[in-house]
């Protein structure tokens, strides 16, 4: 039997708190899960610094990747025998689902911002490079790895397959909303996925939803809306993210200034130099990052030491609302005052905008940039969701901007010049701070 068709003697299952069980019968999928590149995802948290706010959010990219695979497997089972569905694409879909986040590194958002990296680039590199994952995929058939990479990059010719993995209502989003809700413990994020899977229909170049399933999709859209504002954009999580980003900036700056680290930051060197090979990229996981942050708490450099101590011990920056239009002169004045007080505003005064974080919000198609969710009407026509649903229409295109100014409030009490403190307090709070 060809490797691509090979089945395990017995079905394997992974117990899963979201989907109850993740079922594996295909040898290829089983082999991919066993690769070092996929196992590495166990050491990368799905939500980065969110566990600092929601302590349960310790789940990994490994959990999520298995979940996305399981959802796609179930969708495909429902698609069997339907028009437009070619069962030859089954393995391609499942492999792409399983591997779609393979290139994520530790604290992806901060690392990508500071070191100008792109996890999608590394997903491609792992699938196409000299890796065990590549060997497994190429054993299926020569060129299969490239096909999987193309589906994940959304550059494959089969748009239907792409839309299963990546669209406004796809397996990726359906898994992470439910999983993140489960592990954070919030009551948002729940929707009737079984119902959505039952009403999904393949058409020529996308997956559409039978109009009778519209209310289940409304629930899904609402859960996304709530999860973004209640969990993903939580201001405390953003504070931890701000500090993490500043640690990386400081460490890079010190390296470039020939600073003598007590222990050579070997795992970071290629990141500081901007030339990260695949091998080096794969070596860095969250345990390694935490190890260095632990060590850097004892560095000579005051800023690096302080930022690491804050991150490791959850001594976070406080924040106030900030309007860049009305308060830009306030910000510039605050920067001066911080400098006068000996606090470097480059590291200790940070404006953070919510869209600096991963953000994918439902928007009806505008100038055809993004494929909207289409409802399949009883007469066979397609209607865009927000044209049919008042609920979705009401949250589409609403104001979603949030700017906050982060700073270490505890530092302000160490300033000796009272006039400086008073002016800072006036700008930040419009009155004296409550200690």
């Amino acid at each position, binding site marked *: 039997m060809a490797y691509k068709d090979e089945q395990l003697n017995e079905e394997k299952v992974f117990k899963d708190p979201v989907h109850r069980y993740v079922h594996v019968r295909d040898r290829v999928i089983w082999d991919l899960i066993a690769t070092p590149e996929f196992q590495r995802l166990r050491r990368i948290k799905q939500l980065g610094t969110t566990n600092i706010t929601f302590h349960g959010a310790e789940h990994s990219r490994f959990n999520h990747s298995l979940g996305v695979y399981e959802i796609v497997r179930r969708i495909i089972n429902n698609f069997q025998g339907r028009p437009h569905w070619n069962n030859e694409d089954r393995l391609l879909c499942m492999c792409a689902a399983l591997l779609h986040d393979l290139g994520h590194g530790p604290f992806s958002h901060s690392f990508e911002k500071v070191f100008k990296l792109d996890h999608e680039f590394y997903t491609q590199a792992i699938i196409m490079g000299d890796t065990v994952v590549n060997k497994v995929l190429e054993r299926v058939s020569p060129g299969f790895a490239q096909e999987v990479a193309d589906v994940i990059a*959304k550059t494959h*010719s089969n748009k239907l397959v792409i839309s299963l993995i990546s669209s406004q209502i796809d397996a990726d989003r359906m898994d992470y909303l439910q999983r993140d809700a489960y592990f954070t413990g919030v009551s948002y994020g729940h929707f009737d996925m079984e119902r959505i899977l039952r009403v999904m229909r393949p058409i020529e170049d996308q997956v559409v939803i039978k109009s009778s399933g519209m209310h289940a999709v409304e629930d899904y859209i609402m859960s996304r809306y709530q999860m973004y504002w209640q969990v993903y954009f939580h201001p405390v999580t953003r504070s931890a993210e701000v500090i993490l980003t500043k640690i990386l900036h400081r460490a890079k700056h010190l390296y470039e200034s020939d600073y003598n680290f007590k222990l050579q930051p070997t795992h970071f060197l290629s990141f500081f130099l901007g030339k990260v090979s695949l091998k080096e990229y794969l070596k860095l996981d969250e345990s390694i990052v935490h190890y260095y942050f632990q060590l850097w708490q004892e560095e000579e450099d005051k800023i690096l030491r302080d930022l690491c101590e804050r991150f490791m011990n959850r001594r976070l920056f406080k924040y106030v609302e900030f*309007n*860049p239009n009305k308060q*830009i002169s306030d910000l510039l004045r605050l920067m001066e005052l911080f400098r006068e007080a000996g606090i470097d505003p480059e590291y200790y005064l940070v*404006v953070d*905008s919510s869209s600096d974080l991963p953000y994918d919000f439902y928007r009806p198609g505008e100038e*055809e*940039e*993004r494929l909207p969710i289409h409802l399949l009407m009883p007469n066979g026509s397609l209607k865009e969701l927000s044209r049919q649903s008042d609920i979705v229409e009401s949250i589409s295109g609403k104001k979603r901007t949030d700017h906050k100014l982060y700073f270490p409030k505890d530092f302000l009490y160490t300033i000796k010049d009272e006039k400086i403190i008073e002016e800072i307090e006036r700008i930040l709070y419009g009155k004296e701070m409550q200690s």
Partner: protein
Amino acid sequence: MLDNHAKLMQFFSEAKQVTGRKKLQKMVYILQSFGIPFEEKFQFHFYGPYSEELTLRIEELCNLGFIAEEKEVKSNYFQYHYSLTNDGTQFLNQFSVNMPSCSECIEILQGKSSRFLELVSTMLYFKELPKDEVKAKVHTVKPKQKYSDEEMVEAWNLIDELAGMIH
């Protein structure tokens, strides 16, 4: 800190007005691919390189009153026009932006259609591939656009022209 917002405002300051969301996306992507330091992350979407971050940042700038968005009703769609406001100009005057001027390139790009910029940005997205593979890839990912060989040649010429201007 607000650097990315300021870079986009600088772009609008030089462009005066940009018409069309798709055109805006493709212009920023093309400039970025020639090294203009826009930080927005682009991914391949159904219609070429597209940045959700850019969409959201533009919306933020509109909400802040730094960029004006005018909606024009066309026969079967909406067209959007973007320009820097007085508040935006004032903000830029107070904020130092570390970005090279690219007004000549912007002017050239503004003179092209969004369909053509979609082709150029898609070709740049696959720029690591040999030229003939780029052509095949464009036809694979955009079969409905039916780009002609002449358009491809014109796109390569524009890419060479921009490369000469920016580097």
